[in-house]
């Protein structure tokens, strides 16, 4: 009963609970929160408390003293630490509600990877309920991404969406509000960062952190050789000397570093096209493939997939928020007729 009363003072939410970032779309208000999925935990004896969540916690990554641990509770698109995820969600949900008198109890739609297991889905659902949600609905990420990108998912025409997230890359062929074929590979932005860290250690004998690797990827990272070459100065700890050293990386080196994860994504896209029914494949060949997710912001990734598949590839407008916006649109249709878009445990 209390949840229903609290629900009157809560807004319906669509949450893109991503490995790298959590985005929250509030019904009738658009996206109001975009924070890294990072929680800093302070340990006092046997007691653990939340020291920071989101941007502040991410700033602490790799810079924490012994009694604070900055952790990312999501891994490969699913929950790695249930309780920390619950705390993080609880904090984000309360953050997007202006009402500070009553603890919010909203209806929540959470996006889940299409190849997540029943256990992983149940964990996400329980986590959202534990964070105060009144009702929890799940929607598969590629479906939400397609809706958010504005693709004609309800038409009898094949649409292919590739959502490159932080932990996973979701590939789906959608027609008539349903997923005809879906594939999920556990390669995403995090794997790009790891690949850059490994490349720098191997070629420069220096160790850089995840945050530095992410900055390199965002500033000079490229997926296909271009006419321009970009450079960046980075600092890392030299493994041989044990002291920090500065060195310069260029975009061609990063391209080389990213070859392995990028080829995994390309292979997955090709595999999806092979599995696709011929009629839908013809539609996709005519319209092209749409890229969404933070990974779509990697320079020339559309060019790479286009060259590899021979199909037109389009990066959706504002690809980072497509999933959350698509979830929001599904949420707005929830009371009418969008139940076929939702997934069940």
């Amino acid at each position, binding site marked *: 009963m209390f949840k229903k009363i609290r629900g009157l003072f809560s807004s319906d939410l669509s949450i893109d609970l991503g490995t790298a970032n959590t*985005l929250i779309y509030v019904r009738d208000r*658009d*996206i*109001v*929160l*975009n*924070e890294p999925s990072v929680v800093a935990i302070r340990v006092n004896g046997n007691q653990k408390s*939340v*020291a*920071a*969540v*989101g*941007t*502040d*916690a991410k700033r602490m990554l790799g810079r924490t003293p012994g009694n604070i641990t900055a952790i990312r509770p999501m891994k490969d698109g699913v929950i790695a630490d249930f309780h920390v995820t619950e705390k993080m969600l609880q*904090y984000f949900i*309360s*953050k*997007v509600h202006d*009402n*500070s*008198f*009553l*603890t919010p109890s909203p209806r929540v739609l959470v996006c889940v990877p299409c190849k997540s297991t029943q256990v992983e889905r149940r964990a996400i659902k329980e986590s959202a309920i534990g964070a105060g949600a009144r009702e929890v609905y799940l929607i598969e990420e590629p479906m939400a991404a397609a809706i958010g*990108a*504005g*693709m*004609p998912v309800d038409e009898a025409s094949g649409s292919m969406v590739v959502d490159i997230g932080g932990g996973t890359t979701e590939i789906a062929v959608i027609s008539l509000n349903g997923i005809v074929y879906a594939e999920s590979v556990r390669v995403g932005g995090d794997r790009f960062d790891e690949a850059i860290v490994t490349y720098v250690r191997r070629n420069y004998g220096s160790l850089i952190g995840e945050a530095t690797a992410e900055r390199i990827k965002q500033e000079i990272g490229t997926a296909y050789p271009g006419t321009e070459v970009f450079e960046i100065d980075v600092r890392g700890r030299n493994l041989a000397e044990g002291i920090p050293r500065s060195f310069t990386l260029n975009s061609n080196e990063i391209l080389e570093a990213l070859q392995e994860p990028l080829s995994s994504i390309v292979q997955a896209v090709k595999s999806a096209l092979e599995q696709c029914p011929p009629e839908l494949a013809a539609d996709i060949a*005519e*319209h*092209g493939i*749409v890229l969404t997710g933070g990974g779509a912001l990697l320079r020339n990734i*559309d060019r790479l997939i*286009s*060259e590899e598949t*021979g*199909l*037109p*590839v*389009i*990066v*959706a*407008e*504002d690809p980072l*928020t497509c999933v*959350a*916006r698509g979830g929001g649109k599904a949420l707005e249709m929830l009371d009418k007729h969008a139940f076929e878009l939702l997934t069940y445990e």
Partner: protein
Amino acid sequence: MSSEEENIGGAQSFPGGDFADARHALGLSFEQLTRELRLPVRTLESIENGQLEKLGGPVFVRGYIRTYARRLKLDPDRYVALYDRLLGTTDTRSTVRMVGTVSTSPARQSRSLMRFGTFVFLLAIVGTVVWWWQTQYSIDAVIAPEHDAPVTVDTADGNTLVLPPLDDGLPSQEDDLNSALPEVASSAQATEDVESRDMDQEEVAALQEGGATPGAGEDTGVEAAGADGVVSDSETESFAGGLGAEGLSLSLAEDSWLSVKDANGRSLFNGIAKGGQSLDLKGAEPLAVVIGRASAVSRIEYAGEPVDISGVSNKNVARLTLPASQR
């Protein structure tokens, strides 16, 4: 204002000619661009002719325009914005309005307020229950007085008189309640205190008549029972006064629990009737009578007619409705 700004401000059609001009300036053919961009010739022609509706959904058209413009070294954002204006879409990008930075101590302010609110709510519930209980208790006290509670009066000479209950058969009541209330006549109870003092009837009568109990009638509103106010074991007096032969009349040889209710559910008598006591009860018919110890009843009459309770007794408990015809 430049021609492009004018286009963006009030264009009615997409300026595909810009793309054609740029392509000719760069010396590119459709075949070359198709190989390079993987876009069909038909798509490129539709963009140059401004026939964007043939290209499918907006998400695809934006992508084609962006790709083609980038290759022709045109500003893709400008042409996409122009397309959005033609489409009626003001802004496809989501402006993420941050709700604020994350504080280092994410304890919720609402928690304390919620606790306070819950405390006030529980306090209100407890207060309501207490108020209700007190209200009910006081009503019960008014409605159901103790019928068998005797009134003890100390006389001037140190003796104690025990008089029948105050509430039964109050002839001095001035309001209409008097007519509604059952008139109960009860015999004066001979108490053990009086008996132990071996007071004879004349002495008691003399005390009553001589005003030995000053204020007994004035202070309590109860007149001394009976004409002479004598407390007697044997003599039966009607406290209600003038009941006549109608109503229920019963005498008990021994103590028995007795309950008499009238048709309105009002309790005419409820409690222990003493042995040797005679009762005349009158109320709206039918009367529901329960006698806890049927064998203790020496006489029972209703409307002047004797009532046989042997047939309605079960394990010495008699339950009957009077008159018998309304049972």
